[in-house]
């Protein structure tokens, strides 16, 4: 099987879209935070917490969508913690974010042990099953790749569209973008920069947690330590790659996921016998850095990103 065959196979693209899904949720969440001017480095920990919260809720008897809701609420609560520290208190967003990641991760593992003290391997749940969209799923290649995914994947793409519409077409989105660029402009209109930024961080963190829950509720059917495995940090890069625009960010997530799906398949080809597999594992990250260099040189970073807003200071 050579590269060409891989790129033309429906199963490859189906895998790419599946791998992209959690990234899409979390990247959108990060993008919303950053557009409002807050860098949320709590993303990794929030994803871990979301993955656990959604899964344990379903294991405890809630329906799958109930698990998604629990994950979302968990993320929003962690977002509230982040936003209180980073917005009204104006603390360093780096420190708050990394602190939150450590806190959320440890709290998750602790809760896991409290809830399941005896088990040696985590119990399984019945995860989201693929739903074939009538007619569309019959299309060649595109059908099985795009339209035979789980409902949560579809939700991710719908959410991307929704985020773009809200950001670019509504007064609220305008205020969010202005808050990340020049908060003084927002304050001059009598709007509360604090409320807008806190709201963006809370909602964005909720999306991140759903991204984490995708892993336990759709991609797999159980919870493992280290299952988020740096995906949050990738999403930070994807926001930059997407130049803080939802459409481009989704494209970046799919591209990264495609690299990831590709490296697994390349390991099974003739080259895989010669080259150590670690090189393939490295491939998506290496290509992402390259893409980042090429794509985001002209990107305009929100001017007030990471700048706390103090009313009245010159």
């Amino acid at each position, binding site marked *: 099987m050579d590269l060409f065959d891989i790129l033309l196979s429906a199963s490859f693209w189906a895998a790419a879209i599946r791998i992209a899904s959690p990234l899409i949720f979390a990247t959108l969440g990060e993008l919303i935070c950053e557009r409002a001017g807050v860098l949320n480095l709590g993303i990794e920990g929030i994803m871990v917490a979301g993955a656990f919260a959604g899964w344990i809720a379903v294991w405890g008897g809630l329906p799958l969508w109930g698990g998604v809701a629990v994950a979302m609420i968990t993320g929003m609560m962690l977002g509230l913690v982040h936003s209180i520290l980073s917005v009204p208190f104006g603390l360093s967003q780096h420190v708050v974010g990394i602190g939150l990641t450590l806190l959320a991760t440890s709290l998750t593992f602790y809760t896991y042990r409290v809830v399941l003290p005896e088990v040696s391997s985590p119990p399984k749940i019945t995860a989201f099953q693929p739903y074939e969209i009538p007619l569309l799923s019959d299309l060649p290649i595109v059908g099985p790749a795009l339209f035979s995914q789980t409902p949560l994947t579809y939700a991710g793409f719908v959410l991307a569209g929704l985020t773009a519409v809200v950001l670019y077409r*509504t*007064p609220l989105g305008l205020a969010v*973008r*202005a808050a990340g660029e020049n908060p003084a*402009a927002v304050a001059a209109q*009598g*709007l509360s920069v604090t409320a807008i930024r806190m709201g963006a961080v809370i909602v964005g963190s909720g999306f991140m947690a759903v991204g984490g829950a995708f892993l336990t509720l759709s991609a797999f059917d159980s919870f493992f330590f280290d299952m988020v495995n740096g995906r949050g940090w990738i999403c930070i890069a994807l926001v930059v790659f997407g130049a803080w625009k939802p459409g481009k960010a989704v494209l970046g997530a799919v591209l990264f996921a495609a690299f990831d799906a590709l490296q697994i398949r390349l390991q099974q080809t003739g080259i895989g016998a010669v080259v150590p597999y670690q090189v393939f594992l490295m491939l998506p990250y290496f290509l992402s850095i390259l893409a980042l260099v090429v794509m985001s040189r002209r990107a*305009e970073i929100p001017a007030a990103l990471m700048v706390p807003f103090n009313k*009245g200071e010159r």
Partner: protein
Amino acid sequence: MSTTTEAQVVLRLQGITKRFGPVTANEEVSFDLHRGEVIALLGENGAGKTTLMNILFGQYTADAGEVELFGQPLPPGAPRAALDAGVGMVHQHFTLADNLTVWENIVLGVDDLSGLSLKPREVKSRIRALSERFHLKVDPSAKVGRLTVGERQRVEILKALYRDAKILILDEPTAVLTPQEAEALFATLEEAIATGLSVIFISHKLHEVMAISHRVLVLRHGQLVAERATDSTNREELAALMVGAEVAAPSIESAAPGAPLLSLREVSTPDHGAAPGLKSLNLTLAAGQITGLAGVSGNGQAALSDLLSGLITPASGEMMLAGQSIKNWSARSAIAQGIARIPEDRHKTGTIADFDLTENAILETYASRFSRRGWMDWARARAFTKDLIQTYDVRCPGPDIRIRLLSGGNMQKLILGRVLEEEPQIILANQPVRGLDIGAVNYVHEQLAKARDRGAAVLLISEDLDEIMQLSDVIHVISEGRLSPGFARGSMRPEELGGWMAGHGFDAEATDAA
């Protein structure tokens, strides 16, 4: 309009007092604004004008006193209350978001945040109608980040007009307009006043205050020290009231030029977004001469000042320094060659806001003058800064405070001192008095003239034609990157220069040359 409605009080300030720690910013300030009336608010920097406006807009809460709008008491500390009641403000420091378009900036905060759509088409067509009516030319779909300072000012004015403001507060609105544009703005403002708009006009330009206001209020040290009907006062009296003593603008005699220090021959630079580059520009800066560069902002001034500061290099043409052709041009070599810069935006490129005065004072010379064997010599740097503070009359608590706490005028004095202490041969002064009060303006002008008299070549870039005409020995006009011939002091009337600023005359010039 009948006379009874003319007398209606739209805004009443009653005994406003505001203290910041030991500093009293406003003390017992009271006045009324009537419907269709223009009040000019005069005062030096730090006189308390901005604080007063911030209280009106709910950014600060007054320690004592009341504000009444249209007969209703204004709740203190409620930012939206004044806006919703129909008060619009054009701030001196723009409150625009660079990554948003013009129309997005204008419509920000107009609709409720729960609204479902921004209705871009309607908004844009309303903006176009307004900008036509008020002669405020701007493309509603352009990104604000690409606009020049002058264009941004227009967006700010449109922002207030878009909200159908009944009271308009203008903080130094004409600082960046051509005389013609300012005239047009005044004409349309007068039109709007006739329909019942009331205006508070904050300005340092006394002739504008005289031209447009009905009443003048003078603030000094936070107190209202005088109130005059505009008809019964004059510029000299107002200037004296403002600073508390008689002031005279320095009379600057013209001087004979010396040897050419820097010359540009047929220099072109590439366009930068909407900002034009230089188009085959010929310019000579001679020793002992102030060369004035007039023009509306965004016509190539930025390219020229970037070129002279070494931030960009010519795409074609030749640059000569003291008769030598220049190679490897960079910011470092510009500093090394003794080109001193007073940058256009003292907040962005002139200073580092959170550095203290000492650190800001040695920004350009820390390596050469204030370090020994790789170690900073802070004792010398502090002594130097103390000297600057004294010599250039920078009013501040001391060299250790952050520069962001200084008023614009004092910040500019420090920059001026930092530049002039080096006794540079070539001085690039870009909008050196923008936003400064009369006292500071006169001071800066005197210092520039002094530098000229000791033999420096000064390039004065300004959008204020009065300043150019008062100071320059020779005047060039820049328009869309093209440079007019040099006009000797006093040889042109403002209207003629205004014509060049609008782009007339360049084509005739080209035909003559051909």
